[in-house]
């Protein structure tokens, strides 16, 4: 079996195990699942654990729906980097005649979607995206910058049999906005904290330089630049492969990209820099099920202690 085929077999086997144990509920589309009460409990407990580490830093908690303003999305440059992942929301906006044509196509099982029109709403691609325009609208940052805690379902169009690559998944993030020194200190703090949190959950991990999945040839250059400048680190855990471990946390320095796009200004009027730590909470739950088994009551006492106290 080729390396790709054996990786896919391992992914399918793990997915099937998760479904057989009732943890994930298949919905007929790769990467789209319901979650059981047990699965959600692990995620909630993990989120509480993150809050125990970061909750005293004074972050402003903001919870946004899993969609953002299309205009903000367009201004964000996301389409320049990741057109293949974006999810735009379209709706029927026609009259009675258009409705009749729509129904007819549906009945004939023809493609009924070309008449759909783009709404003002786009799926959230990463949990921090709704935050930046909000901060920008507040005017200059205070001297100590800003720190936010966001958590949202995110959408990325990358259907896969790998249960660790869902199309709709949640990211918990802390986002730091301020001077380069402020945001770089924040990122290092979370690289250290992230390793401590995951080590205490007794899963094997490595931290490595990474790049985002930028699109096309231009994207190759963006990816190389990102690596050259060590803008992104990931905490990786082998879930279905040791050769291709899964990124469960990421530590990102965006330089002044978002500050520039949204005109976010520091206290002294400079363009703000931003950094974030993102927790892929489904992936983390999957790693825990992988290493500690499908029965959470049988997990090692030290791990249960971390999550359930």
């Amino acid at each position, binding site marked *: 079996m080729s390396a790709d085929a054996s990786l896919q077999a391992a992914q399918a086997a793990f997915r099937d195990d998760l479904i057989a144990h009732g943890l994930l509920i298949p919905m007929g589309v790769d990467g789209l699942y319901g979650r059981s009460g047990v699965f959600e409990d692990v995620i909630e407990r993990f989120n509480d654990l993150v809050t125990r580490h970061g909750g005293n830093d004074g972050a402003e908690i903001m919870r946004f729906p899993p969609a953002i303003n299309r205009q903000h999305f367009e201004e964000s440059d996301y389409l320049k*980097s990741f057109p293949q992942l974006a999810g735009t929301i379209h709706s029927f906006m026609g009259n009675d005649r258009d409705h009749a044509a729509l129904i007819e196509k549906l009945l004939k099982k023809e493609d009924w979607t070309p008449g759909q029109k783009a709404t003002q709403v786009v799926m959230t691609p990463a949990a921090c995206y709704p935050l930046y325009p909000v901060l920008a609208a507040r005017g200059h940052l205070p001297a100590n910058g800003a720190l936010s805690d966001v958590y949202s379902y995110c959408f990325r169009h990358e259907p896969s049999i790998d249960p660790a690559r869902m199309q709709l998944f949640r990211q918990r993030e802390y986002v730091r906005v301020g001077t380069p020194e402020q945001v770089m200190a924040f990122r290092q703090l979370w690289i250290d904290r992230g390793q401590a949190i995951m080590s205490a959950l007794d899963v094997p991990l490595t931290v490595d330089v990474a790049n985002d999945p930028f699109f096309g040839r231009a994207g*190759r*250059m*963006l990816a*190389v*630049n990102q690596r*050259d*400048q060590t803008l992104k680190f990931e905490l990786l855990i082998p879930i279905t492969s040791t050769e291709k471990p899964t990124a469960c946390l990421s530590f990102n320095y965006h330089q002044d990209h978002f500050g*520039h796009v949204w005109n976010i200004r520091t206290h002294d009027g400079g363009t703000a820099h931003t950094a974030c730590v993102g927790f892929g909470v489904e992936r983390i739950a999957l790693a825990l099920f992988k290493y500690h088994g499908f029965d959470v009551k049988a997990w090692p006492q030290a791990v249960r202690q971390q999550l359930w106290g």
Partner: protein
Amino acid sequence: MTTVTDKIREVIREGGALPVDIATLGDTDDLYAAGLTSHATVNLMLGLEEKFDIEFPDRLLRRRTFESVAAIQAAITELLDEKVAA
């Protein structure tokens, strides 16, 4: 005769890659320090490919290649030479 350097400066100016006038910068001045962003670098690369009818291979798709007019000139000269030799 228009030199390679002149053409590079033309692409930078016409593409609006920089927030400052390229005429104010020397050939070895750091374009990133002058405000060249990652996305602007991509557009600059595409503009240069069109202007010189070349394609940057993967090994040149990195930050250093586009860090100054002189660096771009070195890369393009190399690619043009390869083209003649081919």
